[in-house]
C-alpha cells in the first residue's frame, strides 16, 4: 500500500492581506510562497503512516512550472518522493479540471506501486474551497472521509479512522482505496531536519505536463468581479470610567442599545 499526499503551494498567511485584485486575477503573486499550512498535517500523517505500516509516500502538487518549494518542504519533512503537476494540464479550468488532473497524477504515481490512500489538507488558504478532495475522490471513484482526526488502523484492506463534525466524533471503517482529508487535530507536524533540508534541496523533482496527462476541459463556474472586501472603517470608542465596574456598566449600556444582547 502506498500513499499519495496532495499539497498546494500557497502564499504565506501573513501576506494574504497584501494580495491585490490584480495579483489574484493573474495568479502572479508577489507573496512568499509556502506549503499550505493545512497540508502540513497531511504530510506529517503520511510520514507517520509510512513508519506504522511500511508504505511508500509521494507528495503531489499541482502548480506553475518550477513551483517546487512546497514539495521540497515535504521532502525535507521526510516524504520519499515528490511529483509536480504543471497546472497547464488543467487548462485554466475549474475545480473539477484540477481534481481530474490530480487524480490522473495519483494513478501515475501508482504505476510504480499501487496508491491506495490519498491524503489531503482541509483547505487551501488561497482557494479556501475545501472541494478539491471531493473532486479527486469522485474522479478516482474512491470513498472519501473528511475532517479525520485519527487514523486508527489499516488492516485487511480496510481503514479505520475517527472523524469529527460539528455534532460530535465518530469512528468509521471504510474499504481501501480511500481519499482522506485530515483535520488539524490529527498530529503535530514536524519541522524539517537540517539533513532533510539538505537532501531536499538536491532532489530532482519530476514534472507531469500535458504530454503526460490528459484532462477534459471543464469550466462550470467562473470567478468574476474580484474585489477587496471593503473593511468597514470603524473608529473604536474606548469606554472610559473611574473603575472597571463603571466601564462595565457603560459598555453594557451601549451593547443593550445596539440590541446585540
Amino acid at each position, binding site marked *: 500500500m502506498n500513499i499519495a499526499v496532495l499539497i498546494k503551494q500557497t502564499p504565506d498567511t501573513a501576506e494574504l492581506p497584501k494580495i491585490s485584485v490584480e495579483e489574484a486575477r493573474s495568479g502572479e503573486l508577489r507573496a512568499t510562497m509556502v506549503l499550505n499550512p493545512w497540508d502540513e498535517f497531511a504530510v506529517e500523517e503520511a510520514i507517520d503512516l509510512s513508519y506504522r505500516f511500511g508504505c511508500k509516500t509521494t507528495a503531489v502538487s499541482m502548480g506553475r512550472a518550477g513551483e517546487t518549494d512546497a514539495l521540497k518542504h515535504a521532502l525535507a519533512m521526510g516524504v520519499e518522493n515528490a511529483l509536480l503537476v504543471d497546472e497547464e494540464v488543467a487548462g485554466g479550468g475549474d475545480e473539477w479540471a484540477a481534481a481530474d488532473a490530480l487524480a490522473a497524477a495519483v494513478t501515475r504515481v501508482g504505476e510504480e506501486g499501487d496508491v491506495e490512500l490519498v491524503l489531503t489538507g482541509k483547505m487551501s488558504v488561497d482557494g479556501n474551497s475545501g472541494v478539491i478532495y471531493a473532486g479527486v475522490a469522485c474522479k478516482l471513484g474512491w470513498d472519501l472521509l473528511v475532517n479525520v482526526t485519527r487514523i486508527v488502523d489499516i488492516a485487511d484492506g480496510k481503514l479505520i479512522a475517527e472523524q469529527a463534525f460539528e455534532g460530535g466524533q465518530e469512528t468509521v471503517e471504510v474499504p481501501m482505496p480511500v481519499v482522506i482529508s485530515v483535520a488539524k487535530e490529527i498530529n503535530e507536524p514536524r519541522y524539517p531536519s537540517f539533513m532533510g533540508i539538505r537532501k531536499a534541496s538536491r532532489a530532482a523533482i519530476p514534472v507531469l505536463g500535458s504530454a503526460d496527462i490528459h484532462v477534459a476541459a471543464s469550466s462550470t463556474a467562473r470567478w468574476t468581479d474580484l474585489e477587496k472586501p471593503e473593511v468597514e472603517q470603524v473608529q473604536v470608542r474606548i469606554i472610559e470610567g473611574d473603575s472597571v465596574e463603571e466601564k462595565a456598566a457603560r459598555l453594557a449600556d451601549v451593547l443593550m442599545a*445596539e440590541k446585540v444582547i
Partner: protein
Amino acid sequence: MTILVWIEQNDGQAVSNCWELLAKARALGQELDTEVAALLIGSDVEEAAQQAFAYGAGRVLAATDSSLARFRLQPFVEIAEQAVERTGAVAFLANASIRGGVLAATVACRQNAGIAASATDLWVEDGKLVAARVIYSGNIRARIQFESHLAVASVRPRSFPMPEASERTGTVETLDATLNEDDIRQKITDFRAAEAGEISLTDAHIIVSGGRGVAADPQKGFELVGELAQTLGAALGASRAAVDAGYIPYKHQVGQTGKTVKPDLYVACGISGAIQHLAGMGNSKIIVAVNKDPNAPIFERAKYGIVDDLFTTVPALTAEFSKRLK
C-alpha cells in the same frame, strides 16, 4: 424548475442554519419564478420535514431509512442526486458545515455542475443565480457565475437572517433509499455526540474569546472568560496562541486555521488582533475588545474597547450583565 435545499439534521433535530438558507431560497425562488423544495435524509425526520414547510419550503422530499441514521457520503449523495433529478433542480444548496460542504461538492462534481463553496451571498442577475464567496482567506471577494445547468452552493452559516416559522404544514414526498446497508461501504462503528449544552461557534449570536492575555493565570483567565460567555449565552472562543499554549482545546480556536465565525457580538479578551485571528472573526457585526494595551491592533477593528486588565474587567462585565439579564 426547483431550488433544492438540503436540511442537515442530527437525530431528527434540524441544524438551524438550514432554515436561514431555506428562507433565502424562497426569496430567490420568487425572483426566479421557481419552486423551493427541502430535502431531508435520515432515520427519523418527520418533525424536521414539517418544520421545513413552516420555514418556507413549497415541497418537502424525505428519504427515511435506518441505514440513513448517520451521515455517510455514499448513500446521501445517491439520494441527493435522485432528488435533483426528481425535482428538475436548477440549484442545490447546503449549509457550509463539514457534511454540507462535502455533500455539495460531491453532488456538484458528479453532476458536472459549478460550485460556490462556502458562499457568503446569493442573488439573482438576469434571471440566473449568482453567488459571492471569499478567497485568499477573506482578502478577496469574488462573484461566482455558474456556467452549468445546475448551480451548487454550500453557504456559510449566518449569511442570512433567521426567519420566523409559519403555521404551514404539508404532505411529505417519499424518496426511496436505494442502497441496502450491505451496499454501503462505510460502516460507523462508534459515535460520540458533542457535549450537550455547548453552544457551537458557528451558530452563536455572541462569542466571548480569550487569548494569550490570560497568561498570568491561564486557568483563572479562561474560567472568567467562560463565566462571561455563560452569562451572555455565548459560545467560548480562543486565539491560536491560547490553544497552542494548552489553555483550551483546539475546537475553540477562531481564525485562519480555526473556525470562521460571524456573530452579532464578538468580545475579544486579551487578544491582540493578529491578521490570522481577524481572518476568522473580522466579519462579526460588533467587536468589543478588552486589552490592556491601547495600541493593540484589535482596536483598529473593534467598535468598543476597554483598555484595562482582563482579570478585573471580565468579572465586572459578568457581574453587570447578570444584573441586567436577570
